[in-house]
């Protein structure tokens, strides 16, 4: 059993500080629609350290998928720059698309949509190896077997089509495919959501092992804050196209400073129904604002329980706060912050 307790320092303290693996600067992705401009990502700066296990969390629709897709070039950006492993991502892709794909892999939020309906699991897993001319047929077959083991799938799934797999089995196939080329950077959009807790533990342990042994950098977009808190070394909280707060995971979760982060964390239900019956989460009033027409000043000001006049006028910038990370709240700095 890969049992580990709270004192296990593995993932968090492993975040080697040998410079960023991903640097995002002033990134904007706007969609033109009949109703106007959707500002899905609206000025994001982000640094993911080499070898980090970096979690991106935030409200549904705040732009996490769009950001992740723009980082790997699946979505063109309206403005801003992305550097991966020290190289300009766009230049890298232009110069050597295959080389880029070997180093940087992406796992989609919707596993079915990213697989061909007619390809069996075997074909799905073999394809990247074939395209990149890795090994002969026998070696590829062996590699596919190893990949299945990594994600705990039995060999009996090999000749099945994606549709005939359960939700969690599909998700593991897409993880196995992303690992086929031994990438150095892995971005995953909700890779754990369809997995039961035990398989999920296997996958996060696998990720932690890859990060530990191979120095893989992992960015994971996830809604499951309990898992992010347990396995990630760093966290970014997004709200309506912007970064609300960021920091090292352990200190951030111990003392979040942005009122949105606090409301988000407080909404996580307890697995114990007796606790749940008496717990009173912080409820957010009002409708989530629209990316078509973001509020003036702080984007959270329309729902923030501790809003002050300045919040509706000036947009707060990220600045240093007590947990050592940064927060975009007028009321939070190194001397203190609001508590909901």
């Amino acid at each position, binding site marked *: 059993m890969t049992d580990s307790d709270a004192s296990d320092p593995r993932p968090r303290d492993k975040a080697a500080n040998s410079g960023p693996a991903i640097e995002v600067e002033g990134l904007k992705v706007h969609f033109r629609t009949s109703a106007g401009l959707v500002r899905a990502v609206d000025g994001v700066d982000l640094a993911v350290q080499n070898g980090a296990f970096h979690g991106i969390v935030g409200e549904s629709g705040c732009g996490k998928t769009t950001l992740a897709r723009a980082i790997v070039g699946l979505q063109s950006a309206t403005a801003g720059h992305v550097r991966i492993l020290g190289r300009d991502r766009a230049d890298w892709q232009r110069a050597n698309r295959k080389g880029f794909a070997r180093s940087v892999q992406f796992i989609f939020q*919707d596993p079915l949509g990213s697989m061909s309906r007619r390809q069996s699991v075997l074909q799905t897993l073999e394809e990247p190896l074939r395209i990149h001319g890795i090994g002969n047929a026998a070696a590829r077959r062996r590699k596919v077997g190893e990949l299945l083991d990594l994600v705990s799938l039995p060999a009996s799934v090999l000749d099945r089509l994606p549709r005939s797999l359960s939700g969690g*089995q599909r998700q593991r196939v897409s993880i196995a495919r992303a690992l086929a080329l031994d990438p150095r950077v892995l971005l995953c959009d909700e890779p754990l959501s369809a997995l*039961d807790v035990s398989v999920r533990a296997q996958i996060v342990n696998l990720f932690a092992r890859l990060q530990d042994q191979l120095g893989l950098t992992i960015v994971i977009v996830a809604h499951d804050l309990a898992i992010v808190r347990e396995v990630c070394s760093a966290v970014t909280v997004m709200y309506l196209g912007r970064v609300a707060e960021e920091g090292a995971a352990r200190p951030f979760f111990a003392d979040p400073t942005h009122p949105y982060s606090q409301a988000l*964390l407080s909404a996580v239900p307890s697995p114990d129904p007796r606790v749940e019956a008496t717990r009173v989460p912080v409820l957010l009033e009002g409708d989530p604002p629209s990316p078509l027409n973001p509020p003036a000043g702080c984007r959270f000001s329309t729902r923030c329980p501790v809003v002050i006049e300045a919040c509706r006028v000036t947009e707060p910038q990220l600045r240093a706060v007590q947990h050592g990370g940064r927060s975009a709240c007028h009321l939070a700095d190194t001397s203190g912050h609001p508590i909901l």
Partner: protein
Amino acid sequence: MSEPVYAVEDLVIDLYTPSVSVRAVDRVSFAINAGETLAVVGESGSGKTVMTLGPLGLMPEGVTIDLRGSARAAGKDLVKMSPKKLSSLRGGQFGVIFQDPMSALNPMLKIGPQLAEQARRFAGLSPAAARAAAVSLLARTGIPDPEDRYDRYPHELSGGMLQRAMIALALAARPRVLIADEPTTALDATVQAQILALLRQIQNEDGIAVALITHDIGAVSVLADRVIVLYAGRIAEEGSAIDVLTSPVHPYTRGLLASVPDFRSDTASGTREIPGLPPDQTRVLPGCRFADRCPQAEASCRTKRPVLTCVGGNEVPHRAACPIVIRDEGLADND
């Protein structure tokens, strides 16, 4: 107690594809009553989706299914029903939130009209009323700019918005039974809390029955009255949510709950695995299907199929299919 709105007895489901046959569900019985929430939890691939949707004729394309046992809803036997009759009964009685949003929504059509069509067809609303109902459902599921989203295509919505659109779609026909297959996986914690509250509110107003299939024990603890724990196509344990979640008996349930991360505790339970793989369901062997992975397994576990036995519970019997734990811990409840 009133007659259950959806009841399945001794259900066996074999799935055939050109290459394999799988016993996905192996003699399972369950019933859901109006106004209650039954949660179905268990390992990925354990048959949760097939067990609840199979009797309704909702199986993926390309599979042949052999279904035995009985399944009843609205006083009718679903197993013997023609596909056409089944489909119309389903439309009026059942709302389904599919695990994979894109399988329910047509990617070529705008979101709103798909909802309005449901409301028109099954809840019998006029076109204008159906449109208003669709917009209001989008708003109730917390989607910003519902009027604008009405005219968006599925690919223009985020993962969580799609999931909410699907929840809206399932509710549009005002069903008696809502089958929610992983309804909140793509939602952040605040929106999830909002959706669970919405489900509870609709349940209070309309008395609908909810089957909640989920990996999220937090959602179970918020919403469920009763819980079924499925392992490899069989019920390992069942009972009230409190009994099953706080005094689990079956070694699989205990292992499962031990890997549930608790956001407010400092034990790293989210990295705790149950060692081993789920059994190969293409072969049906005698005995307990969890035996190969069970720390407490004895020789008899591999030869004799364990039966569900009462271990307590008040109004809702708490039952587990593990004679070993029941014997060792003296749990048999004989009254």
